[in-house]
């Protein structure tokens, strides 16, 4: 295994984890239904109990995505987390509230009341996909930072990665192209959430509301996603030459797509799967849309990551100093670390298998109103 192979292999895994994270954000999207005034309280609790059995998977995928990024591309972790401080802190806080909201909301003495925790879940439902989408959007627009490794020898200013402005990441909210992706992701999460609930909860009132959500979201989602994609393909991109010099190249991401037909196919297949799931969710009687939407989402997100990092592209560009831009080669871990972790990653199919088995065992019966009002453990 060459160093380059391992770098690429880990970028594929990061892309896969990123794709799974976005697909699993059906939890966030479904929780937005807590604000749906056409649903009764029992119906909301059915939805809550449905996502309540999955939220830890989404959360764990986020933690693992962070951990794997730290492990394989630590310069991204130190540059982006330490630099775009407020974005990550904000994301973190919404997830922290989400983590306790399920367990606490229906317990007496919880101080914030049912309503307080439901608001926290909805804030997470909106902000988590939005912030993740916007952050990934900056993979293409670039950020305001410099990397100077020799700084560590200077006692007065020892930090290697420094951010160029006091907004520390919030400035991305003014970067319209990145924000387009953030909004698209937020809408996608809402759609995934509705498709998931449709599949997991057995209730005709909820079914009608989920189909309504999907119908309402299709237009805006396609609009934001298409705008983002078209602008991406006509934008300048951050190209890395074989000697590791970074330069701006017109139509770089369009060129990447043409140079990597596999990615083009992944993107198209992914988009078709998502579109088919939208059709199933909005215009048919089928409850199986989520089984097409999730793999479709994973494929689309993976192809976005591939466009950002492969074919000689700087995946985390610096607009302040082009040569500070992060590439797979200059930001990754050492050969042996990547190699050891590659061996560990062989366990992933085993992990996926037991998750699928446990999930299957738990979901053989759909959630019903009787279960929520009955004696079982529930949120």
């Amino acid at each position, binding site marked *: 295994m060459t160093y380059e192979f391992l770098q690429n292999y880990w970028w594929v895994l990061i892309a896969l984890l990123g794709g799974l994270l976005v697909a699993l954000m059906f939890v966030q999207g479904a929780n937005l239904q807590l604000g749906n005034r056409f649903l009764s309280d029992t119906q909301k609790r059915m939805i809550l109990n449905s996502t309540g059995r999955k939220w830890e998977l989404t959360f764990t995928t986020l*933690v693992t995505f962070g951990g794997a990024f730290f492990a394989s591309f630590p310069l991204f972790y*130190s540059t982006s987390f*330490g630099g775009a401080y407020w974005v990550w*802190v904000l994301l973190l806080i919404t997830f922290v509230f989400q983590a306790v909201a399920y367990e606490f909301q229906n317990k007496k003495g919880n101080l914030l009341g049912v309503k307080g925790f439901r608001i926290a879940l909805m804030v997470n439902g909106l902000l988590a996909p939005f912030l993740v989408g916007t952050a990934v959007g900056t993979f293409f627009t670039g950020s305001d930072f410099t990397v100077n490794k*020799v700084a560590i020898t200077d006692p007065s200013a020892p930090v290697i990665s420094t951010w160029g402005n006091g907004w520390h990441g919030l400035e991305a909210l003014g970067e319209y192209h990145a924000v387009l992706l953030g909004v698209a992701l937020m809408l996608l999460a809402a759609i995934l959430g509705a498709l998931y609930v449709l599949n997991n909860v057995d209730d005709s009132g909820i079914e009608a509301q989920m189909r309504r959500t999907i119908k309402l979201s299709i237009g805006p989602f396609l609009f934001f996603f298409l705008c983002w994609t078209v602008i991406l393909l006509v934008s300048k991109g951050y190209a890395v030459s074989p000697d590791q010099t970074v330069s701006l190249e017109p139509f770089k991401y369009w060129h990447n797509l043409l140079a990597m037909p596999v990615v083009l196919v992944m993107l198209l297949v992914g988009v078709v799967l998502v579109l088919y799931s939208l059709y199933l969710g909005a215009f048919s009687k089928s409850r199986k849309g989520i089984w097409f939407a999730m793999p479709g989402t994973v494929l689309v997100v993976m192809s976005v990551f591939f466009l950002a990092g492969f074919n000689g592209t700087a995946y985390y560009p610096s607009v302040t100093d082009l040569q500070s831009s992060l590439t797979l080669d200059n930001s990754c871990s050492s050969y*042996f*670390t990547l190699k050891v972790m590659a061996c*560990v990653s062989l366990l992933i199919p085993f*992990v996926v298998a037991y998750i699928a088995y446990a999930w299957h065992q*738990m979901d053989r019966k759909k959630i019903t109103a009787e279960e929520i009002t009955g004696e079982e453990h529930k949120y």
Partner: protein
Amino acid sequence: MDVVVWSRIQFAMTAAYHWLFVPLTLGLALVMAVMETLYVVKKDPFWKKAAQFWIKLFAINFAVGIATGIILEFEFGTNWSNYSWMVGDMFGAPLAIEGILAFFMEATFFAVMFFGWNKVSPKFHLASTWLTGIGATISAYWILVANGWMQNPVGTTFNPDTVRSEMASVAAFWEVISNPVAVSKFCHSVTSGWVTGGIFVVGVSAWYLLKDRHSEFAKKSMLIGAIVGLVGSGAVMLSGDSSGVHAAEFQPMKLAAAEGLEDGGNGAAFTIIPGIKVPKMLSILATHDVNGFVPGINDILNGYTDNEGNVIPSVADKMAMGRQALDALAVYRSAGDPAVKADALAVMNANVQYMGYGHLSAPEEVIPPVGVVFWAFRFMIGLGMLIALVLLLALIAVWKDKLGAWKWLLWAAIVCIPLAYITGQCGWIVAEVGRQPWTIQGLLPVNVAISSLSAGAVKTTFFVFLAVFALFLAIEIRIMVRAIGKGPDVEPSEA
């Protein structure tokens, strides 16, 4: 206060807060798994109800543990940018393995355990309960491999081209994961969790007995809690002993601070509290040799010869060599001439083991806050022994049926619940404050490990987290107290 201090306070607060929830998770996991095993083996529904009660308390506690764990992971990057670049190559692998191996196991089987009573077979449910606890324990191992590496950075080489510590071979990876400091830390922390879980169960049961409620449930729970807690106590003492030896070997300053030892020597005495000393005891504990040499703070500052005959330079000399290494690194990075580069590299390599000292501005900076470490160490040991004694008496009382007569013991068991938390916090204060100023022992002091943020930004997030933590703690305690007040769902005939 500057950004270094605020970053430290924020991280210390998050870590300390996280450790309020982890020990109970580790300990209760064992208690409830044992109870559910009794249910499946004996087919006695009493044990199912008992396990369900402790699982309910486990779930309340587990949520906050998860919420605070992710903050720690993020804070490595957000507040310790240089650190995460410097250690990413060493520290990332354990963290990634923790995610892949442990977190998914915990998350998946927790859901089955919590919701699956009527959905999966009793055996699959039992397996899920065990796997939730095993997942939490595996998770503890990997994060302590990372922490252990910061205390004793083995298997690493500094690479001037990337400017970081790197794992230079697959053998180095084995060194990192079998680091003796990590192994004893793991045993010490996990088994201290069993003590916390054990005394929690014993204390809650004692309260029911005092109130004359659920007596049968309380007695049986107390028996299991006391056994789990005592096994934990024994293991904590053994692993604590090896932690002491490791501190002497790898972090002599931490040991000197914990002992308040200004001047060391051969056959050093152990101070129980100021004024009461046990002759030669420190040498025995630290080196397992009556006449072993234990360096004091001044010996470390001025240089000394260790038990293997190695001459340890003074801190001032280490600082000079460290500065040479850093200057050589700067030259190596900027020079174009290969000959100049090669010379610089040779100078750097000759001094690289003290590179971290080059960042210090005065030798005294290597001394941690002695008073804090000294007293935290004594409280940890004193309270730990007290709890072990109460657990032992509780076991005897259950065995000899003295619970009715020994009311004072029931009260003592309740008081010991908060004491167990104080003990755990003291342990981490010894471990972490005791190694100041290093984020990575000898390689990276705190003032160089930070992110380039303003003190105001970190101060803001500190107060936000403080408010969130205070809120969650208040809710957690209220819900926990109510759940305990409500009691287990055992039938009167069973209880």
